[in-house]
């Protein structure tokens, strides 16, 4: 079971929040938004693979 996935996502979220705060405080709003977007895309790529495995296993078990 891949519990690490949840920890990874939470860690990325916290790091992105800190970076976002740092960049906003130093007056670089555009870079802060880019960082936010990049973190979100990374997390989405991670979760899309898991969704793929979930759907594949549902398809194979229930014969959809």
């Amino acid at each position, binding site marked *: 079971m891949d*519990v690490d996935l*949840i920890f990874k996502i*939470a860690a990325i979220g916290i790091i992105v929040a800190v970076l976002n705060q740092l960049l906003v405080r130093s007056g670089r709003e555009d870079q802060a938004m880019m960082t936010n977007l990049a973190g979100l895309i990374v997390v989405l790529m991670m979760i899309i693979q898991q*969704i793929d495995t*979930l759907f594949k296993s*549902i398809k194979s*078990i*229930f014969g959809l």
Partner: protein
Amino acid sequence: MTMNIVAIAGIAIVAAVFAAVLKRRNQEYSIIISIAAGIVILVEILSNIAPAVKQINTLLTAAGLSSEYTVILLKALGVCVLAQFAADSCRDAGESALASKVELAGKIAILVLSLPLFEKIAGTAAGLIGV
């Protein structure tokens, strides 16, 4: 093989805490964490349910039931699981309109799946009446 309920409860609680921590700063991550935890728990459930499905299949075949009924039953169950998962994720993300559409789609998919059974029941009833 027993289902690892302790691990599932732990995953759920840890994910809930993480989601609550991240809810204030960036809400999208809390939604993604809850979806990820849901996927992990569902995969665990499915890995446990696979042998049970096989056993139910053999039981129903031994009972003399035609295999097409079992296939329809399992397909309906799969549609239910998928639609419920998608609808819950949408509702967590605050999109209750999308969630209700997904639920409607699931209901209609199950209706379409089970229409041949209705047809067969109607045919049996007509045969009994002697029309």
